[in-house]
């Protein structure tokens, strides 16, 4: 089919790899923006959730924040952010930050709060202080779920960063949005492939990190892996 030939030609054209609108620049923009927003979201959500989860307080809030997050369209958050801070890079960052927080908050809270009381008591019985219980028992056991939350956030942030092209920011969404206005199906398709690749690699990459942070004794047998594997997160958000 000629579309595919044209798309291959698009990817082979050196002109698409140069300057501030080239593929490398857009990929870097996309990853930097997503990474920064995700890091900021984790900096806000992790301490709050760790404290709440350790003391098992505020569970309703920590869990419902994801349900509410799911009900608010990310596109609406993006456009709302424009009303608050104007178009460009700032609303993109603000919206991505807001979207990144709920999955990390909910998963981290559940991960810590669901550590079995017997284990905590056993740790206490061994003479551990509250802080030691947190660092040596609760956090290692919660690590896979925390990482699943970060992974869900990352996938969502990368996806919404694509939409941010609509509010005059760069990133890989530019190829799609510009392709729409130029009615250039080849550019639309090429841009979509790039976005899909970045999102998939992000999800797979963080999936490997999730496996790596899982304590050896907790790694599930291959049997149930299919159900846990992709997006084994308790918050299950898909909003962009």
């Amino acid at each position, binding site marked *: 089919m000629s*579309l595919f030939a044209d798309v291959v030609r698009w990817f082979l054209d050196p002109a698409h790899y140069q300057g501030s609108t080239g593929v490398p620049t857009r990929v870097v923009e996309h990853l930097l923006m997503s990474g920064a927003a995700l890091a900021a979201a984790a900096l806000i959500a992790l301490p709050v959730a760790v404290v709440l989860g350790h003391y098992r307080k505020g569970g309703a809030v920590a869990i419902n924040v994801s*349900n509410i997050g*799911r*009900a*608010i*369209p*990310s*596109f*609406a958050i993006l*456009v*709302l952010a*424009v*009303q608050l801070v104007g178009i460009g890079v700032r609303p993109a960052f603000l919206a991505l930050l807001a979207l990144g927080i709920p999955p990390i908050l909910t998963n981290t809270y559940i991960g810590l709060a669901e550590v079995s009381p017997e284990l905590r008591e056993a740790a206490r019985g061994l003479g551990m202080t509250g802080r030691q219980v947190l660092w040596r028992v609760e956090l290692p056991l919660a690590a896979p779920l925390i990482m699943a939350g970060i992974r869900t956030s990352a*996938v969502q942030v*990368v*996806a*919404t960063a*694509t*939409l941010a092209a*609509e*509010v005059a920011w760069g990133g890989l*969404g530019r190829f*799609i*949005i510009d*392709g*729409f206005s130029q009615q250039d*199906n080849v550019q*639309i*398709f090429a*841009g*979509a*492939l790039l*976005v*899909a690749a970045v*999102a*998939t690699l992000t*999800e797979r990459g963080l999936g490997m990190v999730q496996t790596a942070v899982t304590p050896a004794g907790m790694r599930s047998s291959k049997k149930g892996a*299919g*159900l846990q*594997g*992709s*997006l084994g997160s308790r918050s*299950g*958000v*898909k*909003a*962009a």
Partner: protein
Amino acid sequence: MTPVSALSAVIEEPWVRWSWVTQHTTAIWDATVEHVILTVLAVGIGLLIAAPLALLAWRSPRWREPILGFTGTLYVIPSLALFALLIPFLGLTILTAEVGLVSYTLLILVRNIVVGLDSVPPDVREAARGMGFSRTEQLLGVELPLALPAIMAGVRIATVTTIGLVTVTALIGEGGLGRLILQGLIDDFRTKLVVGAVLSVGLAILADVSLALLQRAVTPWARNRAA
């Protein structure tokens, strides 16, 4: 415009101009109805596709990995990219929107149906067989009803998620309430944006609560257990 006057313009523009709302009730209603139709179609078709896929994944371990892997891969592709991949073939049509929306319901629905069916206790299954149930009777009379809470939970998540994603289809010429949000951005008119966003969130909450009530109604035996 000086910075000061720009700022005062921002301050003076209210979040909602009620006069606009009252003058455009028909347009708002139409957008809401379109939003509901796009959502119901997506979740309905999603269920029709997910049910056989889930049964296959549940019955045959060989198919479980590929089916969950494939629906999981679809799920991770950002919606704008998935719509964009479909446009060269299906154009800017409702078909592009629906194929994309349906794709995203599949992982949620398949996973929940499989989890629900997996959770049926083996002794219950054995009792059904002992009572002379055929494989089909066992599925329809015992296993599916017991899996219903998990399946309904999947339908709820899929519905709420789809209501949010429908707004993105405004960028490809559909959108329901998302079109109001997009117009709010393009016209720099807050009222449209706020009306679109608030009604979309309202729809999501309404759908979630209605489906929760439906779930209670169709699973009377599960009422005493924690939801």
